[in-house]
């Protein structure tokens, strides 16, 4: 039993729904109690789909448990087949139906429907959403491509001379983080390389298209969380190699181009020589100097977290101070990646543990999911979202891929914009008493009408939400005390020793966005040394101690 406040992933049948909703002509019959239909809103509200997901739920109730839930499953499956006439069906159970052990697979088989029916076993009390998506995709690929499996050991026929190389793109799904635009970007890249795309799956594929998967020379795996199992099986069965580089960021995209060209047996140098990303120059231009060594905390699914760490570290010059994932299936990869940055990977699906880590590491930028965005908001740290779980904001109207060279441009903008610009930071430092520049003032480009920074009372979650969305009353010019950004650490001061008045005044001269950190560092420094009274000397001793 695990105490959970928020979850990074849904149950595995949500993963199966993502596959069903990604594809065309596939229908999912889900044995599930009344109420599980909430999942429809993930697709219709969050992703703004204009049709309902292709899912039929049996929605059994207590009174059905006493009678015949198996019969209910059969009648629901039959009605769904007759109404939707799918090309194929997947059937399975949600967490509650798993307990009543009706065997949806067997029941559906007994119906003798005139379409392939693929049973899914998704253990709801062990596994989670991404695992469910991967397993569902793998079962579908096996079911439809399996019919074409050659004799074991048979050599893969060579591509005819003069034929263009062909690949499949595997992994993009409904509810994926920017999958829609990533696929477009990667398709453009492959077209530029003169590599044909055989099938994109699951997004947009029909069951029959999966039968054509073996026709490709190799597979491009964009999201291992979803496509790794299927790609492994295709490699084993058809000798199809697959890509392992995730093209997020400039350097990874270059590596990806090389990997793809090697697999296709073509030259990559001509293409790479004409590379058009703006990130390298933007990152080298001198105004980016202030990005140097910015402390960044990264958390997300394994693919996006590892890619973000690479981009942050070698393409933007940040310092990775924390790296973690909720994707336990890829814990080993993330741990390995973390070693490169000299940090220990945080592998957890406990939101509170992530919050604690962010608090302790004092990052200057958080790259995370929507959950970390809220953690960062509460702590007053800038944040950019890099990964699912998805939120309605993660489906922007504009084209905003994460992958490829255009994706790298998007990363530069989305990660750098939340930060205070270099010169702005210095001006704030030098002229902190400017009447428009105090803590309570909104951004000056909003004509003085911008909202004040969020009050960090922490007392009421709703209040914090409201404060973030409602413009706060305009602060009186000159009054720097209208907004309390950092709760005075009364308890800590009592235990360790208080702040001398001059030290407190000196602390207030430090810009508000680093003042909290300065206060915490100084108190920690004092506590470690048993200093009872924090003076200006202590403040600057601590500053020297913690300066990098």
């Amino acid at each position, binding site marked *: *039993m*695990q*105490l*959970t*406040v*928020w*979850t990074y*992933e*849904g*149950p595995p*049948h*949500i993963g199966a729904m993502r596959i069903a909703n990604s594809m065309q002509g596939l229908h999912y019959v889900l044995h599930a*109690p*009344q*109420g*599980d*239909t*909430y*999942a*429809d*809103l*993930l697709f*219709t*509200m969050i992703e*703004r*789909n*204009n*049709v*309902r997901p292709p899912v*039929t*739920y*049996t*929605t*059994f*109730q*207590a009174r*059905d*448990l006493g009678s015949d839930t198996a019969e209910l499953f059969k009648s*629901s499956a039959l*009605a769904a087949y007759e*109404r939707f006439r799918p090309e194929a069906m997947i059937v399975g159970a949600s*967490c*509650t139906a798993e*307990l009543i052990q009706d065997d949806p697979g067997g029941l559906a088989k007994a119906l003798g429907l005139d379409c392939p029916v693929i049973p899914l076993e998704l253990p*709801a*009390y*062990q596994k989670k959403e991404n695992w469910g998506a991967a397993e569902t995709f793998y079962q579908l690929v096996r079911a439809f491509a399996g019919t074409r499996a050659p004799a074991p050991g048979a050599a893969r026929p060579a591509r005819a001379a003069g034929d263009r190389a062909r690949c499949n793109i595997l992994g993009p799904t409904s509810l994926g983080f920017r999958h829609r635009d990533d696929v477009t970007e990667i398709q453009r890249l492959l077209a530029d390389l003169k590599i044909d795309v055989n099938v994109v799956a699951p997004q947009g594929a029909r069951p029959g298209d999966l039968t054509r998967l073996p026709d490709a020379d190799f597979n491009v795996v964009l999201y291992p969380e979803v496509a790794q199992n299927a790609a492994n099986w295709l490699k084993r069965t058809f000798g199809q190699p697959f890509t392992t580089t995730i093209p997020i960021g400039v350097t990874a995209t270059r590596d990806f181009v090389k990997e793809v060209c090697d697999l296709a047996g073509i030259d990559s140098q001509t293409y790479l020589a004409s590379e058009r990303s703006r990130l390298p120059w933007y990152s080298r231009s001198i105004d980016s100097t202030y990005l140097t060594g910015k402390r960044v905390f990264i958390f997300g699914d394994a693919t996006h977290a590892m890619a973000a760490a690479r981009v942050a570290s070698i393409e933007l010059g940040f310092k990775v101070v924390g790296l973690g994932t909720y994707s336990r299936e890829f814990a080993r990869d993330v741990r390995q990646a973390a070693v490169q940055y000299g940090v220990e990977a945080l592998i957890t699906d406990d*939101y*509170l543990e992530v919050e604690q880590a962010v608090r302790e590491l004092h990052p200057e930028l958080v790259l995370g999911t*929507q*959950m970390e*965005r*809220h*953690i960062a908001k*509460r702590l007053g740290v800038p944040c950019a979202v890099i990964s699912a779980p998805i*939120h309605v904001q993660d489906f922007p109207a504009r084209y905003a891929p994460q992958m490829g060279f255009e994706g790298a441009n998007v990363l530069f903008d989305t990660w750098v914009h939340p930060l205070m610009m270099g010169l702005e930071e210095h001006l704030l430092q030098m002229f902190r008493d400017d009447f428009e520049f105090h803590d309570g003032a909104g951004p000056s480009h909003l004509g003085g009408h911008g909202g004040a920074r969020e009050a960090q009372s922490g007392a009421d*979650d*709703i209040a*914090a*939400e409201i404060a973030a969305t409602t413009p706060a009353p305009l602060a009186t010019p000159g009054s720097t005390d209208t907004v309390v950004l950092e709760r005075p650490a009364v308890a800590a001061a009592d235990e360790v020793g208080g702040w001398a008045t001059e030290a407190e005044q000196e602390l207030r001269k430090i810009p508000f966005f680093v003042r909290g950190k300065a206060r915490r560092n100084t108190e920690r420094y004092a506590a470690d040394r048993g200093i009872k009274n924090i003076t200006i000397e202590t403040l600057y001793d601590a500053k020297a101690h913690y300066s990098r």
Partner: protein
Amino acid sequence: MTSVLATAKALPKEACASSERPVLRQRGQREVFCGLTGIIWLHRKIQDAFFLVVGSRTCAHLIQSAAGVMIFAEPRFATAILDERDLAGLADANEELDRVVGRLLERRPDIRMLFLVGSCPSEVIKLDLSRAAERLSVQHTPRVRILNYSGSGIETTFTQGEDACLAALVPELPSCESSTPRLLVAGALADIVEDQFGRIFAELGIDDVSFLPPRKSGDLPAVGPGTRVLLAQPFLTDTAARLQERGCEILTAQFPYGVEGTTAWLATAAELWNIPRDRFDEVIAPAAARARKALDAHKFRLSGKRVFFFPDSQLEIPLARFLHEELGMFPVEVGTPYLNRQQMALDLDKLPSETLVSEGQDVERQLDRCREAKPDLIVCGLGLANPLEAEGFTTKWSIELLFTPVQGFEQAGDLAELFTRPLLRRTRLEV
């Protein structure tokens, strides 16, 4: 081909029905939330209560997703997610639950009341949460009172979760043996609405008024033979039954939507307290006049329009009554997840006889009827709204009717506006 609507309307009249009106009952996919969803507003209402769902990852995911927005601060609800080991042995599951509750109460010393909320999986494996609540109460008394109820989808639909929660509170209410009449308003209302009603009752001279649920778990109202219960929400079947067992009298009233509904609701109490009609009219006059004026601004947009309700919150019948009687709309079909004929009687009687009332759902066949009826406005859940909009229909998502203060005179205009806005928006957009 026979029209699906015609088929639906040629229903046999039910022999046992108290009302003459036939009700369509179909069995199929029910596109509704389960009772856990009520936690989203209940945890805000009772300010020192915590709701711990004992369930699966699906339960946690539902509450997180159903709120429509995600509030990521630490809320006063959480899920104890069952895993394989809990399923293997119930003894261990109980130990695990004790551990989780201990950890939770340690983290949240501000909590005075803890609800263990049962879910589909906890019910199917027969994890006895009432015994767990008793056991844990002993451990954590007197600091925390621990209660339980079921919000499972196999037992409850959406708002029935609040019903189950309030029903669980009833045995905890102190006793008051006095037969002097006192008024209890049952059903969670927005604080602002509660205060408005409180002021009206006070002005009418009904002094002893309390509300269930209270804002603080320590302020549980006393009940007994003198208690007259006015239901503020139309889904409190079990709560009413439990209150009746405590000797309370449950009043049958219209529900307080719009001018007419609110007037009738307040009048039910006023009559019992023998308040002269003149005095009653005098007290409500200013607010009622304001509400009428507010409704007039919406009438011309809504009057003559046809509305179709998918089942969701059990608010459908009184809301259809409001839209029909006060704004001139015509309800084509009013679907409700569960029909309590007794409590709904007065609102139900005011629906046109041509209106099809349906209980339960087969969502596919209901969508067929809806498409055929081509209503001007569809009130439906979040899963259906965008697809119907994409088909060219105008929709109002029903969950907002629960999350917005809509009862009483001062909110009558706001309530009408919730239905006007989608129609108005369609006329504005040129893209």
